[in-house]
């Protein structure tokens, strides 16, 4: 029950999805909206929302706007913002958490990234390292876009010529890292609430 037209009252709902956002909010509550993160971000030019605005929306519980933006997808984890934040907030980590939340919510804007990360990790899970051709195959099939491989063709050929691409076909692999991955998944599902500091 919300008494607010546009602002979902922050940190109030018990719904699981909101709980997740609450946790992210908690990480950055001490934010003073100074804009240091945005000024520092090397990818800011490509973002539709500045990081400062993104964090503000997190605090104001504006999930729709958050997940319709690509800002968090574009975080390249350079840690500039974390380094410079006068409040010492774990901003890069919060970005990760947004990515995870987006993945769980199957956010459309995040689909590409999610497919990319997922395919990458799947290959790692199978073999303990990335097999590039397998990774690409998984990625293209996840994206369900037949034209997509063409976009990467030129880059792929260049890399192949330099011997940078493992050409072995996809396989189940030895799955020696599977236990580790499972453990991480279990831990994540526990939804540990971390303190913001």
């Amino acid at each position, binding site marked *: 029950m919300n*008494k*607010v*037209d*546009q*602002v979902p*009252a*922050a*940190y*109030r709902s018990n719904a699981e999805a909101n709980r997740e956002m609450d946790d992210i*909010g*908690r990480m950055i*509550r*001490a*934010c*003073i*909206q*100074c*804009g*240091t993160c*945005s*000024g*520092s971000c090397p990818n*800011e*030019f490509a973002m539709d929302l*500045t990081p*400062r*605005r993104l964090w*503000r*929306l997190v*605090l*104001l519980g*504006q999930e729709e*706007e958050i997940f319709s933006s690509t800002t968090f997808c574009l975080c390249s984890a350079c840690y500039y913002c974390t*380094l*410079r*934040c*006068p*409040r*010492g907030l774990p901003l890069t980590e919060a970005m990760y958490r947004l990515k995870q939340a987006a993945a769980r919510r199957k956010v459309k804007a995040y689909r590409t990234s999610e497919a990319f990360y997922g395919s990458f990790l799947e290959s790692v899970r199978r073999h303990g390292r990335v097999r590039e051709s397998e990774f690409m195959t998984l990625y293209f099939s996840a994206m369900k876009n037949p034209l997509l491989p063409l976009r990467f063709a030129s880059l792929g050929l260049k890399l192949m010529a330099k011997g940078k691409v493992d050409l072995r076909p996809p396989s189940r692999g030895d799955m020696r890292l599977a236990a580790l991955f499972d453990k991480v998944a279990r831990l994540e599902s526990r939804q540990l609430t971390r303190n*913001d*500091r």
Partner: protein
Amino acid sequence: MKTNSSKALVVGAGISGIRSALDLAESGHQVILIDRSLHMGGILSRLDYQFPTNHCGMCKMLPLVERDSGSQFCLRKGLFHDNIELRLGCELTSVSGKPGEFSVTLRQAPTQVDPDLCTGCGICSQVCPVEVPDDFNAGLATRKAIYLPLPHAVPNPYVIDPAACDHCGKCLQVCPTGAINLSDQQRGNFLILVVDDEPAVRDSLKEWLVDEGFAVDMAESGRQALEMLRDKDYGLMLTDIKMPGMDGVELLQRAKQVRPELTVVMMTAYATVETAVEAMKEGAFDYLMKPFDPARMIPMVVRIFEDRMAARDLEIGVGAIVLACGTDYFNPAESKNTLGYGICPHVITGIEFERLVSGTGPTAGRLVRPADGKPARKIAWLQCVGSRDLQTNTDYCSSVCCMYAVKEALLAGEKAGEDVETAIFYMDMRAFGLPFQRYLDEAAARPGMRFERTRVHSVTPHPESGSPVLTYMGTDGKLVDETFDLVVLSVGQRPARRTEQLAEMTGCKLNQWGFPATAPLDPVSTDRPGIFVSGSASGLKDISESVIFASAAAARAAVAMGGGDGSSETDDKETAYRDVSGRRPKIMAIVCTCGQRLSTDRDGPLVEKRLKTDPAVGEVVFVDRLCTAGGWQKAQEAAAAKDFNRILVGACHPYLFVKKIKALSAAIRLAPHLIDAVDLGLTGPDSSPPAPALPVARLQAGLARLKAAVVDRLPEVEVAATALVVGGGVAGMQAALTMAERGHRVTLVEKSDRLGGNLDWLQTTIDGQDLQDLCRTMVSEVESHPNIKTMTGSGIVGGYGQVGSFFTTIRGPDGEISTLEHGVAILATGGREATTTAYGYGSSDRIITQRRLEQALADTSIKPAGLETVVMIQCVDSRRKPRNYCSRVCCPTTIKHCLKIKQQNPETAVYVLYRDIMTPGFMETYFTAARRAGVIFIPYDPENRPEVEVADGEKGAESVKVNCTDPVSGLKLTIETDLLVLATGIVPRLPAELAATFGVDVDEHGFFRPADSKWRPVDALKEGVFACGICLGPRAAVESMATGQAAASRALRIISRRRISSGHPVAQVRYSLCALCERCIEACPYRARMLDTDRTKVVVNTAMCQGCGTCAAVCPNGASVINGYLRQQMFETIDALTQAFDEPLDLEAGKV
């Protein structure tokens, strides 16, 4: 038996130390004022300009009554007071004992220039070959190894920086008075024993030390060393640790038995560092790590030597200790330094900027970039550098930077012209003091001034010009790259250097940020009784607050020393001067020949003859070098030998003779104002001896002043040793208690029927202290105190009088009238929460004020558990006309309530709509806590304030909606809220009639107008009237307590004396000439003049008169005069000084 000492020790001679010391000294206590540095004035000695006048004004702290006990010149130059012993280069090294009977040890740094001999001629500095960066100018310029620590100090002896001095001895050769005593002459007598089994180590050590002039012996084993120690008086032993046979530690132990006072330094390889550290517990002084670095070793040995030489540890007993050690500034190079300080040459700190625009600074006040001398036309200030920064462990606001940045930006405009562009990058503009908002508004109106609410994350040099480029995100979300000529970092404050050691030594605790901790609800007390914290040492204060807390500390120290009022001490030591009244002036002129720059043979007879054309001159004595002890001795002998009633000293700068004249005056029992010193102008850079015409003119001008000097004793004003305090809130009660504890009778008049004031409804402080409990304690202390007469339900109906003797009529609760005589009055009439009609207040029970919320949370009529949403709006009617000031307490109160709500119900959504959150100092940490607790802070623009809609509903259940815009997200928000809490601010409660009764001015808002907002923050212009608490300006309860103590301290200056006089010069009225036009009364800035009761005479209260002479200048016929500046004196002075250069000196010859 009275063993208590009424002497106080004040540690730190910055402005707060000076204020504490002066307050104590003026109340009759002896004070030892020490400072580690070689000059007084602290940080303020480096700042020429302070807002809001953008100039200095420190001199307004000088004594106003009994002015003759102190110096009357620019306080930045120095401070003399009969009751203050100022020791510079002096540190506190130990404290023992208890209040009233502390024993403290002071260590005086050795001086290599004898301050009594140094004349400040500066020739030494000219020949000194060593140049090092100049600390005084924040490293922006260089100085020599022998230098003036402060360019403008009085007296101003040169000092030697031992670390920089290379002992070349050049200064020694040129010093005309032999004032320099390079300690290396004595180094040869300082025996050092080097003990090591390795010959190479011994030899190299010996070589280095001998080069430095020390006498060095060597021993190859512990056994040999012990024998040598028995033979000779070694001052220092350097011993290896790992030696065959007796090792270094054993040697140390046994050596200490032989020579307990021997200083031992252990020499160690890396492997035995721990042993070396252990050895220090056994009594080793320090250790040196092999391989030796001479750059580290030599200074250590020199320091040991200097300390030995000094050995002037002074042990004294004091009754109380005031710590006024101030603060230091954050060094941006010490952190991650993304702002490029020390990397980009055009990035400087605020302090460096102050030096840059200072007349005594490296560029003599021209605003140019220090690195390349190019003009700075576009300057940026970056706020919160090392403040409000969790990354540098600074979860506090430094409180002063916002205003100093604004001031510096204004100065830039003044110095470099109106078209200079200035930008201040800030987060919250903390203009929380009463006059700040107006200053800020005026600054903002200056063309070229820009405020950017954003944080700049880094500074990079422009690839071509090297100028600093700032990258920042504008409020509109656009990323901006902007190039500036100069970037100034508004660095925040840190605890003063060595505060930790001071705390350890005094046994006082530090707070979590490293500042001396004060007791809760006791703003200046440390946890060790008898030791108090003055000024900004307890953290983050501007000048005004520092001065208030300094006075408060002085009051507490005075109380701690006990012993009742200090009047007996001050009144008894009056010097009885010879009575020379009614005698014709008979003057002895003592003329310095200044190393024969005035030739005794050639010029002497001319000078004498010329001076004697004035029949008042009885004798002219020539003495060479009056500035030296020997010279002055001769002068003193000459003066004592004859019975002259005036003495004129012709020498160099009169400031140098302030102390000497006082001593001479006491010695020959001639009042000090009958002895005068004039500058003959003989010294100076020009080395050719001047023609005697000018010195003669100056001597004649001096004669003119002396001849007409007033010989009468200064009139005095009788003082009633009692006080009246009007207002029984926390400030008034505190003021009353402080004076009562000091032994004075106090009448406390309170309008309402009970004491307590706003403590009546306030519950807790932001840090959780119980104010209700405080209220009960204070009220019972006041009511049970034998020295306090409490009159509740009473009011002031009228009164008159001046300092020392006010007569006030009081109406009691049943209408009975009584008249009270009292020496001082303290107004503590307080203030109240403002009422409002804004934001729908009054239209719904859901809309309340913060005061109501405080009460409702306490009596649980509002329970957070039942609140889904709370909105709070800050700055309701505040910080804009007509109430254009910040009420200061609202932001902390709001945050306090947010935290309380969140604590009781974390699910309540709390929104705070604000302009700038004002949580100065350590309160910032609660702001952070509130954000962490999930409170949403939404800034609003004063032009675009939130809107409140109250929709009809049942009574008490109306729907309240708040519309606002979040500028960062750009969202237009509508928040439906259960509760809307308005921070309406504070308005004073100082009735105009009451103010008029005590001759007090009120400002446009109705607050008490202090004599000076920075330097005399609790005084009225009218002496003897003070104020404390909210009627001075909005402040929290604990701050109000400090003002209560401060007002008491200022009052004690007066009522601890039986009689007070003003000082020279002072105004007088010649009634036979006076036409009663009353212009002088109107002109007097101190209200020291009034018509007598018959309205037939203008009378001057000589304790209030400051001798400014405005009254004399408005009086057309000299009915109002100012002694020392009578018309005759001025006319003859002008006469004397208009002599042309070629005027014939010799009457007969008509030529020189």
